[in-house]
C-alpha cells in the first residue's frame, strides 16, 4: 500500500477566495476555503478525501489540477511543481492528470456526440485522427462498458451511470497516471455506484492509476481508498491508512463521522456520537482548532491555539492527527 514512490506531493496548499464589497469592490475579507493542506499520494494507490459539504475538498482537487489558481503552496507531480507551469507546459502535463466530475449531466457538452466527446482529448493534443481516433474511441467505449454504436449518440440519450462511464472514458483517453474523482459516484444511485466503483477499481489495476477520491460518503471511500484524509473547514483533521482510520480513529471529528456512518445491519447496536450545532462560516472560522465549537472533548487550549501535527505510533503507519488531545 505504501510501498510505491510518491506520485503527487502537495505541501501547504492554500486557496483563499476574496470577498469584494463596497463602491470600488475592495477586498473586504477572505474565505479560507483551503488552509494549509498537505498530502501525499503514492503511485497506483487511492487517496480518499472526506469531509462535509463546503469543507474545501473539491477546491483541493481543482487547485491541484490548476482549474483554480492556488493562493499558496506547492504540488510536486512526478517531480515537477504544478503551480509554476506556464500555460503551454500545463497543457502538456494535463495529459497525465485528469478529472471525473460529480454531475454526469452538466459535465458533458450537450451538443457533442459521445464519440467526439471521448475523442476530444486525443484530438486537442494531436495524438490521433481519422481512423486511428475512431478505433481508439471504440476501444475506450468498450473498456468502460459501453457499445461502439453509442459513439454517434448525444449525452442526453444516456442514463446517469452511462454518462459517468462516458466521463471516465474521456478521462482515460489520454492514458493519465493520476485522476481526481470529484464526488464521482455521489450523483448515482447505490446499485450504479457499485458498478462505477468496480470499474474504477479495475481500471486502476489495469492502467496503474492513482486516484484522489473526493467524497462525503465514508462507505464509498472505505471501499476504494488506501489512505484517507479527513477535512473540516479547510483544514486537515486526520490522515491515516484506510484500515487504521476505520479501526482506530483518533480525532473526535473522525470518530463522530464514523459513528454517523450507517451500517447495513439493522441488528447492529452502537452508541452514536452526535455533533451539535452547524459548521461555522468559513468567512469567520473559529480561532484555535476549527472544530472546537462542536468538539465533545474540547479543552481550553483548543480555543486559542492551532492544534499541532501529531504522528500516531508506529511511525511507518503514517497516521497523522491534528488535535491537542494527543500532545
Amino acid at each position: 500500500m505504501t510501498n510505491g514512490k510518491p506520485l503527487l506531493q502537495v505541501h501547504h496548499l492554500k486557496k483563499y477566495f476574496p470577498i469584494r464589497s463596497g463602491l470600488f469592490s475592495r477586498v473586504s475579507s477572505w474565505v479560507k476555503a483551503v488552509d494549509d493542506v498537505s498530502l501525499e499520494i503514492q503511485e497506483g494507490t487511492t487517496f480518499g478525501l472526506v469531509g462535509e459539504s463546503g469543507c474545501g475538498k473539491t477546491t483541493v482537487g481543482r487547485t491541484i489540477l490548476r482549474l483554480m489558481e492556488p493562493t499558496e503552496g506547492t504540488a510536486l507531480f512526478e517531480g515537477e511543481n504544478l503551480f509554476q507551469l506556464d500555460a503551454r507546459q500545463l497543457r502538456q502535463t494535463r495529459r497525465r492528470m485528469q478529472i471525473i466530475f460529480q454531475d454526469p449531466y452538466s459535465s458533458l457538452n450537450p451538443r457533442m456526440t459521445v464519440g467526439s466527446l471521448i475523442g476530444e482529448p486525443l484530438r486537442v493534443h494531436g495524438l490521433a485522427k481519422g481512423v486511428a481516433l475512431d478505433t481508439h474511441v471504440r476501444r475506450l467505449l468498450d473498456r468502460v462498458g459501453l457499445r461502439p454504436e453509442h459513439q454517434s449518440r448525444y449525452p442526453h440519450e444516456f442514463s446517469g451511470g452511462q454518462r459517468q462511464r462516458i466521463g471516465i472514458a474521456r478521462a482515460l483517453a489520454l492514458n493519465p497516471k493520476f485522476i481526481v474523482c470529484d464526488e464521482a459516484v455521489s450523483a448515482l444511485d447505490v446499485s450504479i455506484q457499485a458498478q462505477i466503483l468496480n470499474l474504477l477499481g479495475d481500471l486502476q489495476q489495469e492502467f496503474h492509476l492513482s486516484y484522489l477520491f473526493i467524497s462525503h460518503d465514508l462507505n464509498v471511500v472505505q471501499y476504494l481508498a488506501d489512505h484517507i484524509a479527513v477535512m473540516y473547514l479547510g483544514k486537515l483533521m486526520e490522515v491515516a491508512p484506510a484500515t487504521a482510520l476505520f479501526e482506530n480513529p483518533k480525532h473526535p471529528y473522525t470518530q463522530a463521522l464514523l459513528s454517523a456512518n450507517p451500517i447495513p445491519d439493522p441488528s447492529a447496536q452502537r452508541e452514536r456520537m452526535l455533533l451539535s450545532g452547524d459548521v461555522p462560516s468559513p468567512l469567520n472560522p473559529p480561532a484555535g482548532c476549527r472544530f472546537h465549537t462542536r468538539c465533545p472533548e474540547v479543552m481550553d487550549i483548543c480555543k486559542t491555539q492551532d492544534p499541532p501535527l501529531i504522528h500516531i505510533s508506529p511511525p511507518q503507519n503514517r497516521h497523522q492527527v491534528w488535535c491537542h488531545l494527543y500532545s
Partner: protein
Amino acid sequence: MIRCWGPLSLLVLWCLIALLGPLFPLTPNQIDLPNILTGIGSQAWLGYDDLGRPMFDRLVIGARTSFIVAISVVTVSFIMGSLLGTCSAYIGGVVDLVLVRMIDIFLAFPGILLAIALAGMMGPGIENVVIALALVGWVGYARLARAQVLSVKEQEHVVAAIAIGTKPLGIISRHLLPLIMAPLIVEASFGIAGTVIAEAGLSFLGLGVQPPAASWGSMIRDGTRYMLVAPHMVVVPGLALMAVVLAINIFGDWLRDWLDVKAGTRHTSRS
C-alpha cells in the same frame, strides 16, 4: 409549423424578388410624362409616381435595397457582436469591463439617432448606411452573447474541456458558441426586421440611397408631398414595408418557440 406558412411564404417572396429582380426587364427610372401620378390601374400594376416612373418596378428595386442592407448589416453585427461578447465574457477581468462600459455607452444613445449622426458624418450612400447600422447594431448581439457565455462557462463541461487541455480557441468555438447560438439566431431574426425599418428611416431622411435609385423609405418620402392627390405613392411602399417587417417578426416569434421546444426536450440539462 402551420401558423408560420403565411409569413414564411411572404419572406421567401421578398428574398426572391430581391435576388432575382434584376433578371427581369425592369425600368424603374424610365419617365413616362403622361402618366404622372396615375393611380393603380390597367396601365401599370401599381401606378406611377410624381415623375411618371412605374411604382411596381421601383418597389422591386426597393425590396432589393432593403434586403441587401438588412442581410449585410445583420451579418456584420451578428459576427462582430457575438465574437466580441463571447471573448470578453470568457476572458473576463479588465477586457470584460471595457466592453461592458462600451456597450453601456452605445445603449445610452438612441440607436437610430447615432446611425443618423454617423450616416450624416460619412455622407449619404448605401455603403455608409450599412456601416452606420452595423456600428449601432452589434451592441445587442454582444450583450446577449456575453450574458449567455457568463452562464454557460460556469457549467462543468467547460471546466472539463479545460481539464482535458483544450486551447481557449477550441473552448470558445466548440463549447461556448454552439450552446449560445439559439438565442442569438432569434435575436438576429428580429434584427433583420429592425434593420429594414432603420434603412427605410434613413432613406426617408435622405441619408440612404440617392436618387434616382429606389428604396422603400425614399419612395415614402417622395410620396408624402402628394399624399392627398396620389395616396398610392405612400400606401404601396408603406404596405410592403409593414408586411415584410410583420412577417419577419412573426417568423422570429415562431423560431424562438421552436428552438425553445427543442432545447426543452432534446437537451435536458440539470444544474
